[in-house]
């Protein structure tokens, strides 16, 4: 009886947290900005710290993942005498799966954790309450630009990841392993469809960006305002963010590519 009750209590508190997070998101995003110019300034600052500063890790890991894929794919495909198909393998794997998922995981670690820590520290040092004292809505001033910047940045980073991955794979397979470059591109272009692969990959990245950034800003805003609480909230952002990405990825993949 007690177990059932505690299960019910757990479910209700979970439901409450989800509801609170939903209201929080709606309040921070769907309220119109006070002054358009000022909110653009805030957004640009966040785009810089969330997007531009994540660029290096995304480009480097994209290039290396492309190179590794090309090497692994080549060694297996060469057994069947069809090493030209490495371009096809590379493009499909990157566009459909690896670019959105890996970029989102990196983003959760690189940008999501810093968003949580920053907002959490603002809460701990009572900057959020002082905004309220001054009559400035902290949701609009602090949360909204960070959330919107995250949602804009992750799809762009995912596209950059795909492009650098394909260039990295091209360097390894054509430049180093000696795959014929005409066959490399033509097989790739034959099997990659703009709407089915590139647009679907982009939609995936967009969904991940909403999930990760939402979790990050919510965890920061709701954290216990102590140093331990901020640490826990940051950990939760990365763990919950990664799990959300992987679970969402399965659902989205089943919906997009499931009907063979």
């Amino acid at each position, binding site marked *: 009886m007690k177990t059932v009750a505690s299960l019910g209590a757990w479910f209700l508190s979970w439901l409450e947290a989800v509801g609170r997070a939903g209201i929080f998101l709606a309040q921070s995003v769907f309220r119109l900005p006070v002054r358009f110019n000022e909110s653009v*300034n805030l957004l*640009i*600052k966040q*785009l*810089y710290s969330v*997007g*531009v500063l994540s*660029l290096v890790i995304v480009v480097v890991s994209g290039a290396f993942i492309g190179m590794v894929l090309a090497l692994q794919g080549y060694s297996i495909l060469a057994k069947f005498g069809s090493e030209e198909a490495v371009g096809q393998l590379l*493009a499909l794997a990157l*566009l459909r799966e690896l670019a959105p998922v890996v970029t989102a995981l990196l983003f959760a670690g690189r940008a999501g954790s810093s968003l949580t820590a920053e907002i959490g520290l603002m809460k701990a040092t009572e900057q959020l309450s002082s905004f309220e004292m001054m009559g400035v809505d902290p949701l609009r001033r602090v949360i909204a630009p960070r959330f919107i910047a995250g949602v804009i*940045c992750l*799809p*762009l*980073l995912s*596209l*950059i990841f*795909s*492009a*650098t991955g*394909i260039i990295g794979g091209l360097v390894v397979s054509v430049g180093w392993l000696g795959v014929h470059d005409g066959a490399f*591109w033509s097989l*790739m*272009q*034959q099997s*990659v*469809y*703009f709407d089915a*692969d*590139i647009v679907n990959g*982009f939609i995936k990245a967009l969904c991940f960006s909403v999930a990760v950034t939402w979790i990050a800003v919510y965890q920061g805003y709701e954290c216990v305002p102590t140093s331990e609480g901020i640490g826990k909230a940051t950990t939760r952002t990365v763990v919950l963010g990664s799990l959300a990405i992987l679970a969402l990825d399965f659902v989205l993949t089943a919906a997009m590519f499931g009907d063979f």
Partner: protein
Amino acid sequence: MRSKRTELFVGCFIVLGILAFVYLAVQVSGLAFSGKKDTYQVVARFDDIGGLTSRAKVTIAGVEVGSVESIAFDKELYMGLVTMNIDSNVANIPEDSSIAILTSGLLGEKYLGITIGAEDENLVDGSEIYDTQSALVLETLISQFLFKSDDSED
């Protein structure tokens, strides 16, 4: 407070993202921005389309001249009805040409190959190619081979 430096970096970042998108669209998926090409539609009925898909290419002498628009089932004749778009530049295909479902390589994708006939009249929009050759299905081929070899032993 926003500095020019930050603005510049953000601008570069967004341009980079758009460039990556254009690169993926043009170079990787081979998307052509030339718009819809001028084409005319021709249909053909096959006994067995064996894995042909829409968007498969239509070739003459191995050169791509069009693509498969749609594949449907003709329930009156119990045949596969293939509708294809052929480039308007190639408007001189004789009416009695034959069409076959071919495979590129041993296990590659299926495509259509048109063999040119001798008639003076040409195919126009909406006309049908009557001389069709179905896809080679491996199982059918093997069973034919087995029965043939049985016959020769008698």
